[in-house]
């Protein structure tokens, strides 16, 4: 009889997961399965749940240079991700990019968002028009932008205006950036 990978009791739960043709098998007893949230109807069948992140981690392509990373906003590190299976904040996607790209590469279909609000969305929606789904990816309703996004957008517009020698417009954008930064307390 197979043994539980966590406590050595007879295993009653056998999980097989195939991602991108790579098979991972985890065996465990009922108690350990419950402990790791395996009976969670909503969550993932396994993986990324506390402790189990480790088991999945070993099957993943790891970028060793990711080890020294730390998120400047929340302090999340590859180690804390390994322990909790969760990232700390949206900014982790920037500061822990190396780690995240490795995980995404081994667990996701692609590396670029093609769904709602995406730049590539229009194309995907055309292909799917035959299925009768609403063209949601092509539709770009007014998504509320975060301050950071807004600033980036304005900065891009400012650079473009300077390049095009439209100094009046550039001055207007510069003032807008200043006001926005002021209101959010960004220096």
């Amino acid at each position: 009889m197979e043994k539980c990978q966590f406590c050595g009791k007879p295993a009653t739960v056998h999980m097989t997961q195939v991602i991108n043709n790579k098979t991972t098998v985890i065996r465990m007893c009922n108690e350990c399965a419950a402990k790791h949230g395996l009976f969670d109807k909503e969550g993932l069948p396994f993986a990324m749940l506390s402790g189990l992140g480790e088991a999945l981690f070993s099957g993943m392509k790891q970028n060793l240079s990711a080890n020294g990373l730390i998120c400047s906003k929340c302090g999340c590190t590859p180690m804390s991700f390994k322990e909790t299976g969760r990232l700390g904040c949206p900014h982790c996607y920037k500061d822990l990019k190396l780690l995240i790209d490795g995980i995404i590469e081994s667990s996701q279909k692609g590396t670029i968002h093609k769904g709602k609000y995406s730049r590539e969305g229009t194309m995907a929606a055309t292909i799917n028009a035959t299925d009768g789904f609403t063209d949601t990816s092509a539709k770009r309703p007014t998504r509320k932008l975060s301050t950071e996004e807004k600033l980036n957008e304005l900065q891009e517009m400012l650079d473009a205006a300077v390049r095009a020698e439209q100094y009046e417009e550039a001055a207007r954008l510069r003032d807008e950036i200043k006001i926005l930064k002021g209101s959010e307390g960004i220096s």
Partner: protein
Amino acid sequence: MNDFAKKLFQDSKLAKETTPVVVSSRIRLARNLADFKFVKYACKGDLHAVAEKCEKVLASCPIFTNSTTINMGDLLDYEKLSLVERHLCSQEFIMETNESKLFFTDDHSISIMINEEDHLRMQVFRPDLNFKIMFDKINAIDDHVSENLNIAFDNRYGFLTACPTNVGTGMRASVMLHLPALVITKQIGNLILAVQKLGFVVRGLFGEGSEAQGNFFQISNQQTLGFAEVDILSRLTQIIRSIIEYELNAREIVKKERIIWLYDNIGRALGILRGCYCLTSIDAINCISLMMLAVDLGYLPNTLRGDLHQMMMKIQNSHIQVLENRVLNAGERDIKRAEFLREFFAAVPNLKFD
């Protein structure tokens, strides 16, 4: 019945429209506020602020005029678990309930978890397979949310989530299937492997327990990044349609080759349900699964399908305690469960075999 029990048992419409093979389907979107840490790392004050912001925006959404908001911290343990049994929230959601809130519509067709693993987990349910209607519904709510809150979004990664396995669309679509004939004909193992190879997940506990759960299987997408929402939904729809066809074919084979075995099993199950005085939930679900099959094959009236589905909810551990309004131990639950079942199946007509 207390107020909580009334809210829990008011979804008769959703259950009544259940179809053969497809028991229910669900789409879930995960969203986070850009300016806050993800739930696991956020402090109590942040979680409180997130809950307040989300609640305010949701309350202004016209779709939630007939809905309930629950502070999860106010509930008893079995009340929380009964919401999990109804699929209105996840197991993880009820572990830490400090600042978490649950929104659901009176017909139980939409539920929103605030401060689960992600700040917002929005779900829509249907008793059949119709992702188009479901997606339009959840997408409209998402439009409202993203117009009114700073949602964490990146042009390359899409919607940012606490776990990179949800990033991108943040969408998980799943379908609960009743596949007794594929289990009886032992084709289920191969089917599970085939579905997994296509990048979808079959949930259920394999190994020893795999056949002992009323033949219910949940299939959902594993990957969330690199596809448009509509791609994931149309692929899943195609897969489910072929599984339905396999199941229906397998039922024909069982009827042709093992009819006495089938009559015997269905007949005995009804006997148990009418005569039991102490029944575990696994035994009960297995028997009800066979009654569902009997309805699908025309041995019991079609009108029973919705009632059976509701019965399956009602006899789950925490539902029994909600109905009784007190904590019951396993033995007491088994006795109460048997009582509900005896009473219900006494009124069910006799089987009409071909």
